[in-house]
């Protein structure tokens, strides 16, 4: 029993280190990529190529006084950042990094991740409602309707996928995609399940963007309108934890996309050995696209965002679902 316990503790430490390290260094990646897209170079002063910049940011955030303005609901104000970070880190448990590198091989892994994904929205709501700031309240109203609108297409595409591979356990799903890249769900399913899978991949990617309030859908922290949206009243580590939560969510979203569509730790060519490396490469490629999108597009208009989901994404994912069901029925 003890080695199971040790294994769990080791995994726990690994996961938290992975989440914290990722949160810090994704900030660095984002600022470097944003810099080069805008023909400037991003952080360079602190350490070689600015590599120590995230540490400097971390120290700065921690040294700042955590201000709790009066007129604020103290419990909600303090709980909110945790409610964003904890579910994100929790859902790392079921992500299969490698062949045996999965903390818990949970049968309903996918369902667990989606359950946690909806909790972080609650964190944002409580945070902005707790901070009794007009801008934050407006941001809260937006974030809720945005996340509801984008939860449904995400689940629909996931269901279509689960129907095709009839397993909710991420580990099995990834092992099903063994063999070359043509075995990955993205390509295999287009021939075996439904021709709409590439579009389903795009929809899943867009909804993942919206779930983590990123890029064209950043309603939670719309700098140019709502000053800083839900995070207006937070300073010091409160803001830092929100930030880590947001980046952890992006990592989760990217990891999920790789597992479901791009065959987690499977190597693209059959003779190459599988391994964690492939998983990380694919995940960081998706994170690069997320950052790339953020620095290219303006923010969508709030109603266009909702229309996009209700009138475009949901119908297409429904069609995808029906086509998959029909295809499976026939063959």
């Amino acid at each position, binding site marked *: 029993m003890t080695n199971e316990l040790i294994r769990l503790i080791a995994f726990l430490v690994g996961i938290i280190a992975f989440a914290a390290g990722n949160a810090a260094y994704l900030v660095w990646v984002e600022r470097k990529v944003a810099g080069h897209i805008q*023909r400037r170079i991003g952080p360079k002063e602190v350490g070689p190529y600015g590599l120590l910049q995230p540490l400097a940011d971390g120290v700065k955030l921690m040294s700042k006084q955590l201000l709790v303005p009066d007129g604020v609901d103290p419990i909600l104000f303090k709980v909110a950042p945790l409610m964003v970070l904890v579910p994100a880190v929790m859902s790392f448990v079921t992500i299969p990094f490698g062949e045996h590198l999965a903390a818990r091989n949970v049968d309903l892994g996918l369902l667990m991740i989606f359950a946690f994904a909806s909790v972080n929205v609650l964190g944002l709501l409580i945070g902005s409602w707790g901070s009794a700031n007009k*801008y934050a309240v407006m941001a809260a109203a937006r974030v809720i309707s945005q996340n509801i609108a984008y939860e449904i297409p995400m689940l629909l595409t996931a269901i279509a996928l689960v129907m095709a591979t009839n397993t909710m356990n991420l580990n099995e799903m990834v092992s099903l995609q063994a063999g070359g890249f043509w075995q990955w769900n993205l390509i295999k399913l287009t021939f075996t399940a439904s021709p709409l899978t590439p579009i389903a991949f795009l929809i899943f990617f867009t909804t993942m963007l919206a779930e983590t309030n990123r890029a*064209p859908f950043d309603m939670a922290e719309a700098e140019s*309108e709502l000053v800083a949206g839900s995070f207006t009243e937070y300073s010091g580590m409160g803001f830092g934890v929100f930030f880590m939560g947001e980046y952890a969510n992006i990592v989760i979203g990217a990891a999920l996309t790789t597992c479901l569509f791009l065959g987690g730790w499977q190597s693209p060519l059959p003779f190459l050995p599988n391994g964690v490396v492939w998983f990380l490469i694919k995940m960081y490629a998706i994170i690069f696209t997320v950052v790339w999108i953020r620095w290219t*597009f303006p923010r969508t208009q709030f109603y*266009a965002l909702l229309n996009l989901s209700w009138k475009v994404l949901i119908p297409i994912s429904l069609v995808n679902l029906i086509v998959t069901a029909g295809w499976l029925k026939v063959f």
Partner: protein
Amino acid sequence: MSLDVIDKSLETFVLNLGPQHPATHGVLRVKLTMDGEYIVHAEPVLGYIHRMHEKMGENRTWAQFMPNTGRLDYLAALSYNHGYALAAERAEGIEVPERAEYIRCITVELNRIASHLLWFGAFVLDLGGFTPLLYAFDDREQILDLLESVTGARLTFCYFRFGGVYNDIDDNFITGSREFIKRLRSRMPMYHDLVSKNIILIKRLKDIGPISQEMCRRYGATGPVLRGSGVNFDVRKHEPYSVYPEFDFDIPVYTEGDSMARYMVRMDEMEQSMRIIEQGLAKLPEGPVMAAKAPKILKPAKGDYYAAVEAARGSFGIRLVSDGTNTPYRLKLRSPTFSNLSLFSEACRGMILPDALALMGTLDLVIPEIDR
């Protein structure tokens, strides 16, 4: 989409789009009474950067007020120098040599492109897109270097004098400008692909913030705001001054009157300004740069004079009342954004906050010019 606001008893709250807010370029405060996300009533509050230029005008000599005109709208400062120089020359009856007129037009148009580039970057930043701002600044930097090599200043020029300009332009300014125009022409399609044709931006701007011609007339809006609502009014064509009649350029006019129309008017205006600069450089005559008999101490005859110029944001007018002494008796600065902003409270009723900010972005505000 606009909520027809019937009675005021709805449970509304007052939101301060405070003097310190990312989307108000400068210190403008808008008191918004909001019902949820919809704006019930907006009331801009001015005066945070009011420096009383008009009183300064009354206790300085005519020539000493020139640096103040550059501080009104520091993004297109040369047009304001031009307006003041024109008014004083009209009052005193000074003849400006041909070459000086050409230099004035070329530098004013360069300044207009710089102002539009900055507006373009800041406007897309208001809508959330960060990158175009830096591309636009990259181009604008070249104009500032060009103007710095001639005038010595980058933003608040004090380059025009009554009867001409401070010093002559040299050859590398001419080659520099031609090279700049070639470069900007090659980058304009990139701007249009990245921003104008982008579906997200089109959805953000198409028929948002309609401003009708009748509203423009009641509020006295001028410049790209007016030309976005289908009225072909540009002081350079309507009331030709300096050597503008010699250039053939056309005035972009869009009839939809929404934010997209005002956006496209300014983008096309950059193209027209480039045409003017090219023709100006081609026809640049030789000769003196300063009027031969420009009086050192200006003492215009009694009476009042009015001169209007097409600044980047609209028609900038100056009314001088002189009582024959060497200091102006009264100096009225008619700032275009003052009238453009006055229609904001009527135009944004019933809109949601992001659209109201998009509308404010298309009005292209420079707050020091409103507050004077």
